[in-house]
């Protein structure tokens, strides 16, 4: 099924085409989201939301980019919204714990990296890298994740993030330097 035909069928809400569309792209979308949010459960929910968004707004899809890039753009935006919501929750929890009376239990905020961290706890440097990626500014985190962890090209990343290739190069170089510095500190402290 070629892309144009698939888009037409999706616009007609054809179930067979919808099934084909999800099965073709769900693995890639899940991987992209997982490597941004670092949490399996959240990645699964966000993948579903991404496909729902894509199916509901398929009429807005214009052929200036490929369907896959468009889908990744939705996935990246969804992931960013999720990260921002997590940040807000954390800030709110801190405020609440400051003003909480003694009888009130502070809210336990689940660590978004907990589930995956468990799986990689044997490799301290990988864990440190993941934690430091989480500390990067949004755009640097996205650029690093898409290029280094997902293996996208600069051109693809620029298209997904809707910025120029030059901007991607700058973001990536800043992210890499920050990560190398923080990992250097970690590495030389532990050895």
């Amino acid at each position, binding site marked *: 099924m070629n892309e144009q035909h698939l888009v037409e069928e999706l616009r007609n809400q054809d179930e067979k085409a919808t099934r084909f569309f999800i099965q073709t792209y769900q693995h890639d979308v899940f991987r992209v989201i997982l490597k941004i949010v670092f949490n399996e459960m959240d990645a699964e929910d966000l993948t579903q939301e991404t496909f729902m968004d894509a199916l509901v707004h398929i009429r807005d899809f214009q052929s200036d980019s490929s369907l896959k890039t468009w889908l990744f753009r939705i996935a990246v935006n969804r992931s960013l919204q999720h990260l921002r919501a997590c940040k807000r929750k954390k800030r709110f929890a801190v405020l609440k714990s400051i003003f909480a009376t003694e009888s009130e239990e502070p809210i336990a905020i689940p660590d978004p990296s907990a589930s995956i961290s468990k799986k*990689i706890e044997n*490799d301290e440097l990988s864990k440190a890298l993941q934690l430091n990626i989480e500390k990067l500014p949004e755009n640097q985190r996205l650029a690093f994740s898409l290029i280094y962890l997902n293996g996208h090209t600069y051109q693809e990343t620029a298209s997904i993030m809707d910025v120029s290739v030059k901007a991607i190069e700058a973001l990536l170089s800043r992210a890499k330097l920050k990560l190398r510095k923080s990992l250097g500190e970690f590495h030389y402290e532990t050895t």
Partner: protein
Amino acid sequence: MKPLNNMKFDLITQSLSRKLDSIEIPDITEKVIGARKNYSTTIFSLKRMTVAAAILLSSLNGAVLWYSWNYSQEKNQTELIDSLYTTDADWSTLLTLNE
């Protein structure tokens, strides 16, 4: 503090990427198809409810217009009759008309 060298950094990045790749991917096809159907049904119901509400509102609007037009007609007639019975000039007109 010295930054980590490029080669080691690349190795760690690849290791993290591989570990994330080893995570089993859930099949979400049925969940999304189910959610899409629910969404379509909800939107269809909402559209039907909007049309029903629009018809109801326009009927209500028509009824209010009809009532206010009737009321104003009745009011005009009452005011005309009242004015005929209350002023002297009108009494004389009526009497003249009677004769």
